């Protein structure tokens, strides 16, 4: 078994501002999805959600801007770490992530351990 980080990005695109009901539905999907991963015993780290209101970006020459890094109209909203046999297994699981309901995406990265050369 190896560890893979799933990094979630949300879109800053205006068309994805959900109604309160939609928000509720998405939240329920997230809780169910995380619970499902927990139940499968593949959650190495339940990770963290990363906030929006308290965020800044520090760039070269001590330039500080408000908010997360959104040069690409997306921002990282959180991450978890899974335990699976292969990268492809982790990718299959990522396909079920509720982030797609709000126009987001998932980056899957192998966690480098001491013996890796990746």
């Amino acid at each position, binding site marked *: 078994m190896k560890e893979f980080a799933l990094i979630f990005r949300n879109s800053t695109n205006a068309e994805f501002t959900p109604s309160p009901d939609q928000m509720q539905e998405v939240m329920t999907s997230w*809780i169910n999805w*995380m*619970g499902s991963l927990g*139940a*499968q*015993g593949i959650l190495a780290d339940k990770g963290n959600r990363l906030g929006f209101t308290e965020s800044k970006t520090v760039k070269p020459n001590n330039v500080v801007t408000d908010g997360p890094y959104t040069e690409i109209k997306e921002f990282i909203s959180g991450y978890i770490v899974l335990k699976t046999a292969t990268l492809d297994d982790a990718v299959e699981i990522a396909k079920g992530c509720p982030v797609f309901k709000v126009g987001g995406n998932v980056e899957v990265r192998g966690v480098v351990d001491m013996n890796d050369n990746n």
Partner: protein
Amino acid sequence: MTITKNLRRSLYSYKDLLFPFKMKEQELIPHLFRTEYRKLIAVLCKHFGFECIEIAEDIASDTFLLATETWSFKGLPNNPAAWLYTVARNKANDYLKHHHLFDEKISPLIELESTINYEMDIDLSNRNIADSELQMMFAVCHPSISTEAQIGLALRILCGFGIEEIANAFLTNKETINKRLLRAKDKLRTEKVKIEFPGEGEINQRLNTVLTTLYLLFSEGYYSFSQDVILRKDLCLEAMRLTLILIENDQTNKPSVNALISLMCFHASRFDARINQNGESILYPEQDKSLWDMELIAKGEYFLNRASKGNSLTKYHLEAGIAFWHTRQTDSNEKWKNILYLYNQLLQIEYSPMAALNRTFALSKVYGKQEALSEAEKLNLQGNYLYHTLLGELYTDIDNSMAIIHFRKALSLSKSSSERMHLLNKIEHCKILN
């Protein structure tokens, strides 16, 4: 310690713990022995130190032996507790004098500064007893020994269980238990574990160790396969009693501890309903709800309330919440939604096959069997009896051939005759539906 073993099998109930009342005289002796044994051990150990725990145990045992012999001839003294303490004190002083003389004769060059007086004044005030028991709990539930050893030692020293009973509880033999306890005591000696309250810096971590052990002790009683139903109930009771000691002390009266005792109360409320006379489990949906103890449920709610103060959310909080919802008898959507929500959170903090299976069952109640089936197939718990039972249930009315396959698999893994009956009925039912 066969004397205390037989006397211990008592009249001691949940009500004694949570709703103290005046005891009648004929109930006095069993209750007295068990209570006083542990108090004496706690105080003597505090005085002698952990290195000499066997001495403390011997003194306490001798005292009770003498009590049993004397009282069966002469009858109960006016103040039995005081009688026991006097005898124990005398024996302790005799030991000290003997020990001191031994030292004086054999090693004339005593360089150690002796702080022990020849006449030991054992402080047996309620305050000192409570403090000693609490300190003993921290000493026994020490991270340097395995949790198995911690539980064994707790049962012996904190609860006054005999070696044979501990062996029964763990479904093993006396030699194994004796070895385990000996190794544990040696380890505590080499680690120089003191019988004292942990400092500010380590209290939280040490408390976590204690809670883990108490929870495991409770689970031993609740989930064990031992046929001895009284013993299993006693294990649960002891775990609750020890947890209550933590509640009663300001420094350990934390939300997590309140959550733990709440959880224990909820589970214990169903004890009579979940076991038949052969010691076999009756599943939740099939339990006779009139056997649920409503007073215990009320106590559980009381402690759950106290646990909700503050910001912490531990696995004990989640499990207590889940247990709370299980005490609601109506099979509402709200009940199962809440249970599912809580399991979703619990499984993120800590995985267990039981939680995974229970979560899937709750999911079927909220979203239906199809949804639950696709989740169940991801669980990877083949060979687990409960897994196949669950799959059998979920497949019933959807794919009865699959249901039969899983019920048959569960049958081959089953260890109890009432379970097998239950499964055979399910298989027959599915055959008819097909």
